[in-house]
């Protein structure tokens, strides 16, 4: 079956929905999502979305730019960061106008709180001197992502956007470097649908499920990135994967930085506030990469706590904040500790460990969300990406908390605008039924393949190996091991078989395709990490502990080579105002 839409948006999280709201009524627009839109992962975001509104204290978007550049460990492109932070104020006000319910300050304006890495100069006259935390994160208790996702979904209903929910996109259609549509199947009945489009946007989210301990939803398998990579297009900076310091021990479920923003502190087994040693000025509110490394360090040096299953954790203490603050500002996350670990956060500390959280890398784009064809900056006509699946790059080597939700609405809108502009002159390209061939063949292969490998075994081994060899700390030896493991798993994947041969709502088949995508994303991640012989942001090489600005102020572009390892090319970082400095907090 062939559908025609001026624009097809793949993904109904914050980025996809924000883009959909922006497409003018005169153009036909379809949003495809593998889950119902309000099930998208954006809904799990807790802590906040930042903008220098100055509602609680003096702040400026320039402060926000500086923090984001520094937080990115100077890998973020400074021109893009400027675009995002400048537009942040308008973007948040716009969300409020759309109906998003925010917590409020005494004047009735949007309330703001502290968040890791967001600072301002202690002395106005010394802009680059000592910095102190600033209240920049706008929030709605600890359900910011949930209400943001719902608000955007509500606005798409108001605008009567067409949805194809529980449709799984499997293929990107290209002709001579121009995008002309996508292929998807309806999960309910496995019918393959071809979507012919003048413009396509990917807003398919991250791939945290490549790691064993992760805050990401089961559907976070980076499908969009893998599809783009399969189409011969590059993936950028995939070696930068953020581990959030505070995941619930064993489960990885996130305990938002808001807990520390409100005054929660990290403690080791001796009850010591250990962050005072690693980041004397901002302590527990240091950026995530630093806090995660500090935690692992404490554990390695014997100051962690050994859990019943032999794994280690440290403690996040919010009990001193009092029941009232906890119930009003952190109800959801403290509820998680109660439900899943049986811990009462008003009385006792919460066991936590770093959890794989956010992909800084992804599909390379420019500030208008146009997908890049190569490291030279040429673009693919008609193809756009926004949100976590994209790499603009505003987060560089390490994203600051609350900058992702911001990224979604700023770049979702910019992408929507750029598409609307493109549609003024764009034409449909020829697409016929043969476009479904690849997807049909893959599905038939999955049904007929009768090897003895299980999907869950391959996935678990991948997740364990990534955790061990490509996690918070990396070494050449570990990454080599990971590469061998990956090649083994890719071979074994050819030998999988499905037990479920039915055409109705076949989630085993969906998991098999998602696993293939995880393997692709792991490939780009591991090879990038292996090549990058320095430590920067979330990429921490124990054998190269220093940042190396002479050789590595550049973005990795990984191209899939199918029968061999990916080809890696590099693109220089855009530096405008801020020369790299040592990153101390």
């Amino acid at each position: 079956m062939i559908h025609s839409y001026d624009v097809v948006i793949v993904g109904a999280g914050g980025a996809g929905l924000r883009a959909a709201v922006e497409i003018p009524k005169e153009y036909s627009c379809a949003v495809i999502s593998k889950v119902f839109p309000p099930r998208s992962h954006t809904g799990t975001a807790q802590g906040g979305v930042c903008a220098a509104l100055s509602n609680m204290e003096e702040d400026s978007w320039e402060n926000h730019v500086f923090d984001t550049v520094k937080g990115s460990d100077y890998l973020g492109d400074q021109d893009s960061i400027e675009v995002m932070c400048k537009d942040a104020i308008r973007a948040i006000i716009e969300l409020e106008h759309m109906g998003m319910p925010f917590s409020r300050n005494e004047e009735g304006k949007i309330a703001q709180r502290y968040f890791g890495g967001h600072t301002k100069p202690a002395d106005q006259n010394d802009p680059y001197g000592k910095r102190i935390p600033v209240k920049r994160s706008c929030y709605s208790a600890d359900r910011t992502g949930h209400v943001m996702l719902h608000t955007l979904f509500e606005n798409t209903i108001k605008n009567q956007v067409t949805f194809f929910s529980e449709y799984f996109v499997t293929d990107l259609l290209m002709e001579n470097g121009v995008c002309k549509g996508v292929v998807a199947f309806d999960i309910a009945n496995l019918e393959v649908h071809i979507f012919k489009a003048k413009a396509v946007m990917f807003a398919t989210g991250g791939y945290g499920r490549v790691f064993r301990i992760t805050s990401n939803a089961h559907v976070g398998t980076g499908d969009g990135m893998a599809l783009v990579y399969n189409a011969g297009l590059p993936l950028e900076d995939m070696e930068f994967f953020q581990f959030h310091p505070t995941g619930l021990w064993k489960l990885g479920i996130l305990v938002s930085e808001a807990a520390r923003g409100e005054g929660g502190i990290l403690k080791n087994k001796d009850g010591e506030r250990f962050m005072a040693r690693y980041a004397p000025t901002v302590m527990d509110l240091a950026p995530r990469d630093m806090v995660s490394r500090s935690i692992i360090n404490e554990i390695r040096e014997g100051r962690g706590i050994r859990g019943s299953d032999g794994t280690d954790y440290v403690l996040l203490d919010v009990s001193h904040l009092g029941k009232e603050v906890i119930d009003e500002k952190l109800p959801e996350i403290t509820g998680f500790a109660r439900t899943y670990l049986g811990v009462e956060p008003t009385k006792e500390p919460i066991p936590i460990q770093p959890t794989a959280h956010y992909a800084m890398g992804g599909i390379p784009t420019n500030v208008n969300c146009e997908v890049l064809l190569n490291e030279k900056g040429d673009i693919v006509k008609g193809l756009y990406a926004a949100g976590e699946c994209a790499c603009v790059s505003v987060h560089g080597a390490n994203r600051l908390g609350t900058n992702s939700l911001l990224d979604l609405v700023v770049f979702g809108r910019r992408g929507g605008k750029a598409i609307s502009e493109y549609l003024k002159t764009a034409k449909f390209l020829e697409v016929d039924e043969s476009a479904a061939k690849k997807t049909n063949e893959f599905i038939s292969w999955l049904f007929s393949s009768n090897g003895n490998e299980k999907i869950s075994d391959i996935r678990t081994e991948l997740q364990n190996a990534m955790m061990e060899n490509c996690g918070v700390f990396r070494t050449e030896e570990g990454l080599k091991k990971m590469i061998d493991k990956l090649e083994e798993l890719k071979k074994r994947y050819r030998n999988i078989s499905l037990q479920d041969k039915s055409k109705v709502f076949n989630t085993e088949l969906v998991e098999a395709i998602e696993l293939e995508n995880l393997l692709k994303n792991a490939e780009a991640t591991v090879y990038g990490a292996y090549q990058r012989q320095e430590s920067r942001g979330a990429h921490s090489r124990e054998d190269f502990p220093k940042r190396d600005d002479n050789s590595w102020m550049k973005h990795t572009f990984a191209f899939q080579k199918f029968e061999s390892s990916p080809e890696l090319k590099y693109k220089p970082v855009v530096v405008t105002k801020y020369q790299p400095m040592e990153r101390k907090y």
Partner: protein
Amino acid sequence: MDIQLKILRFNPEKDKQPYFQDFNLKNVSDDWRLLDVLHEIKWNYDGTLTFRRSCAHGICGSDGMKINGRNRLACSLLLKDINTKKPITIEPLPALPIIKDLVVDMTNFFDKYEVVKPYLINNSPPPPDGERLQSNEDAEKLFESAKCILCACCTTSCPSTWTNENYIGPAALVKAYRFIYDTRDEGADERMDILDTPDGIWRCHTIFNCVEACPKEINITWHISQLKKKISSREY
């Protein structure tokens, strides 16, 4: 510990009727979520077992199902919190057509949600360079209703829904509350017109099943009763 389960199975390609299938699992830990149990079966024993899930911590609303007779989220319920001495029964949410096993067709549920105009209605231009003001007290009045994750546990637990499939149901009513009580919204009248109809709010007979079913602990009946009062005292 060892557990026994009875899971309702249905594959329309081969089954005429849904039926219960027994599973026995050994050496599971009591801190497992019911979702972990389902994954254990799917990933290690029976790949055909079908259910929806995503976030695995009670925020996306995917895995509402009937567990030991009560609608809950499989990801928010631990084995230690239910009776495991008897076989655990797991069925799809009631009152919606079964697509396969624990997956139900949610179309009717989402249609009802759309009926109440679930979006801010405000035709006055907002302040040109700032937010609309709202006191924190007024904002917090919305938070409980805004917590709703559209999992359908409430609506499908309601006897009024079972007897009349056109009844708009508790989830849609909570959504209506979310906007009618928003100081920024101007659509209260339109929405109350919709609620004040035969299949609207008056089919709620305050049975409280919804409150018990809600995994987000929203006091749904309280929200509905506020709406009822507001509608009854309307002046035309």
